[in-house]
């Protein structure tokens, strides 16, 4: 019996790789296993090799694995490209149709299952995915009933006949492979899972759900990889809550529409990736200058320009922190888990209204699109705070204007929505006085700049940094952000085994930078490793600039389009020691 295993399916894009993965993993999720998915895809829609990998475990996992136990292949290319990942004694389940061969030097058992033939015999080659997932399921020695239930739910609305056909396909796949293998393979038999109900969800969907829970009712956006799923989720769900999604003509329209809607009182967001973020820059300045709440999600992908649009990167950090001309207060939050994606959206909308500032939520492709198990989101933790939003303002004498930009102690002024009788004021991106009238007075200018730029001094978010620090004076402090946390933790386990002590800090509040909180950990560590998916060490630069300790900091950078593997992190850390 084993506690974890890696499974991968490969084929041509559009050939059923996605759906096989979906049904297989849904059933595993029902049994209570922890899953972590990794989608490899190119920007082609049909054709071209694609593969999905999932790691299955009885314990929480948040990283892809280095090796592979089972490879399901719809074509020889999938074997040729992926078989090298197989651990010795691993298994290839391949469609007998293409006469699969195990590449030289790969020590794996091959089961050639007539995947296409069985599917066609049952009526349609579309059922290939069911045959393949049935075969995979059987190898793990898991009960077929659970699987059949998942199949029933997937196809229920197509009628009983379709369900039965698919169940039959699963059964045939399972039987065939078991016959060849002589029963479930012992070393793939998974220990029983804890059976606790979990969610199996991608970051973008968690963001969508968090957005609705946060009371956001409008989204204006322009499609882009890897952000589009947020829009697609919200267009399905927002109408049920009275809201809607507008697909705008470009990202400038998306962000300015969101500014207009926030100004008029509806929590509104937009989401994009690097190219769209670049187009939004001037408008972000407008929101900062006019103190409008605004939430933007940037799902980072490979840049610059069109870059690697379907690959992992964390290189928009500088753009998010520094982007827009002039100086404005801005918050950049970096969720580091699926749970964060949900709860941070609520936080983002609250912070944005409480401080009347733009908030950028930073994810990366792996966090946005990688499907993972996570704890069920807690309804009782949803809290909405609209800050100094006032209503029923009494009418002022002689058309006097409301002090929307009143100079207050904390720099945050009362906010009123259009429609309020006593609330009329001006809003302009030109420097303005307390009622919003344009003003070039140098005294006013300085007061207003200071007001805006000091507003965030009191900012407190949940876990500005997330700390796992078992040691007072570790050999290593490893710092990361976004999707890399799980990988770092696995590397640390290996380092532990070698006797190398390490702490781990995840930076979740990128701006304003939580230098003070971080300093304690920087101070205590002998060496500091900052791990990021970019070429110019943007996070490390923030740390050095705000907290210091430049002489201790070592960069571990990866910008080839792929997420870090635990072994790479382990090796990099080991070499430093």
């Amino acid at each position: 019996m084993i506690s974890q295993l890696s499974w991968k399916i490969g084929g041509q894009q559009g050939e059923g790789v996605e759906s096989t993965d979906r049904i297989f993993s849904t059933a595993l999720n029902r049994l209570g296993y922890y899953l972590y998915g990794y989608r490899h895809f190119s920007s082609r829609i049909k054709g071209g090799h694609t593969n999905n990998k999932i790691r299955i475990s009885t314990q929480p996992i948040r990283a892809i694995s280095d090796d592979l136990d089972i490879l399901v292949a719809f074509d020889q290319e999938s074997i040729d490209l992926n078989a090298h990942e197989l651990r010795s004694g691993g298994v290839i389940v391949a469609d007998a149709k293409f006469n699969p061969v195990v590449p030289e030097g790969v020590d794996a058992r091959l089961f050639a299952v007539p995947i296409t033939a069985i599917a066609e015999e049952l009526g349609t080659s579309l059922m290939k995915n069911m045959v393949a997932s049935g075969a995979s399921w059987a190898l793990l020695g898991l009960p077929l009933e659970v699987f059949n239930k998942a199949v029933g739910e997937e196809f229920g609305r197509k009628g009983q006949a379709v369900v039965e056909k698919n169940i039959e396909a699963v059964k045939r796949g399972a039987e065939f492979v078991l016959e060849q293998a002589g029963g479930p393979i012992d070393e793939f038999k998974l220990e029983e899972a804890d059976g606790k109900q979990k969610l199996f969800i991608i970051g973008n969907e968690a963001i969508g759900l968090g957005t609705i829970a946060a009371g956001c009712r409008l989204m204006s956006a322009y499609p882009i990889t890897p952000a589009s799923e947020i829009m697609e989720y919200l267009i399905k769900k927002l109408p049920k809550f009275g809201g809607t999604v507008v697909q705008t003509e470009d990202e400038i329209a998306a962000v300015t529409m969101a500014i207009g809607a926030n100004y008029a009182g509806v929590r509104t967001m937009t989401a994009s990736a690097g190219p769209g973020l670049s187009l939004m820059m001037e408008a972000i300045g407008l929101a900062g200058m006019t103190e409008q709440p605004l939430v933007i999600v940037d799902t980072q992908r490979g840049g610059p320009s069109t870059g690697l649009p379907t690959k992992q990167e964390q290189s928009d950090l500088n753009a998010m922190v520094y982007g827009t001309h002039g100086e404005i207060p801005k918050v950049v939050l970096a969720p580091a888990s699926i749970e964060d994606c949900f709860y941070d959206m609520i936080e983002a909308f609250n912070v944005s209204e409480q401080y009347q500032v733009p908030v950028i939520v930073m994810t990366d492709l792996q966090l946005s699109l990688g499907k993972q198990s996570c704890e069920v989101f807690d309804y009782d933790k949803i809290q909405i705070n609209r800050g100094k939003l006032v209503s029923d303002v009494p009418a002022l004498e002689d058309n006097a204007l409301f002090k929307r930009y009143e100079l207050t102690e904390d720099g945050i002024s009362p906010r009123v929505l259009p429609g309020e009788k006593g609330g009329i004021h001006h809003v302009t991106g030109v420097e303005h006085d307390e009622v919003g009238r344009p003003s070039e007075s140098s005294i006013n200018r300085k007061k207003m700049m200071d007001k805006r730029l000091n507003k965030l001094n009191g900012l407190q978010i949940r876990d500005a940094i997330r700390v796992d620090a078992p040691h007072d004076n570790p050999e290593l402090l490893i710092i990361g952000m976004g999707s890399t946390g799980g990988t770092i933790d696995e590397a640390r386990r290996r380092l532990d085994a070698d006797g190398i002590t390490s702490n781990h800090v995840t930076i979740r509040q990128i701006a304003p930078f939580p230098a003070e909180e971080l300093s304690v950990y920087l101070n205590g560590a002998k060496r500091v490793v900052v791990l990021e998916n970019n070429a110019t060490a943007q996070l490390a630069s923030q740390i050095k600039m705000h907290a210091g300790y430049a002489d201790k900091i070592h960069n571990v950078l990866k910008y080839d389009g792929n997420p870090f593997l635990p072994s790479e992190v382990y090796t990099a850390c080991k070499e430093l020691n």
Partner: protein
Amino acid sequence: MATFKDFRNNVKPNWCPGCGDFSIQAAIQRAAASVGLEPENLAVISGIGCSGRISGYINAYGLHGIHGRALPIAQGVKLANRELTVIASGGDGDGFAIGMGHTVHAIRRNLDITYIVMDNQIYGLTKGQTSPRSAEGFKTKSTPEGSIETTLSPLEIALSAGATFVAQSFSSDLKQLTSLIEQAMAHKGFSLINVFSPCVTFNKVNTYDWFKENIVNLNEFPDYDPSNRIAAMTKIMETGGMLTGLIYQNKERKSYEDMIVGFKEEALAHQSLDISRESFDKLVAEFK
């Protein structure tokens, strides 16, 4: 009931004496009062330019945004609170150069807002460069040898983009302009009113006198039928785009807000932000 005086504030416009924009401001104030609006129920969203300052000169809610983006901001305001009357406004550079993409798509989208372009055929605020509305051969600081690009015809573009209300006016004709703004506010959908608004400082060609000589008022054609799109297009072309009045109106097409499935009459901004435990559980169950 509010009178036009209630739409005045005590901010003194920084427009040059004689600028056409003054009358457009007055026309908006008059029209707002005459359709029975209260200042708090009007939002004027403007772009950047001399003309863009207009939102600061009207006693109403208003937002003076960034160059070329008045329309998407205005559409956001309307989606958030459809109980407000929303006017978007700006110059010809704002709406037909940097903001042209938004103009065409706002027309297609057909949200119920009124867009008033203050068309002076030149860039005023940046002190006299060519605009997409400048005539060919027009000499400006940026076209010392005369403009060599064709003049953009916003009316034709609006019609071909599916506009449901297209009008043109002249800032000197306060009566016509006020009436057109009233009709536009009553129209259920997107209304474009292009207003000739002479720039007395930088445009020495398209002057008040020049407009008076060249404008053709649709009043002169008693048989003209503004519900006929082909006739509208023909008339625009026949007059070289120099006609004024209500050029086209489609009363059949519903506004965007009215076509969004499940979108309520009540302002979204007044609806609750909370979701019930039951709805939440339903959303979450999809990922189990």
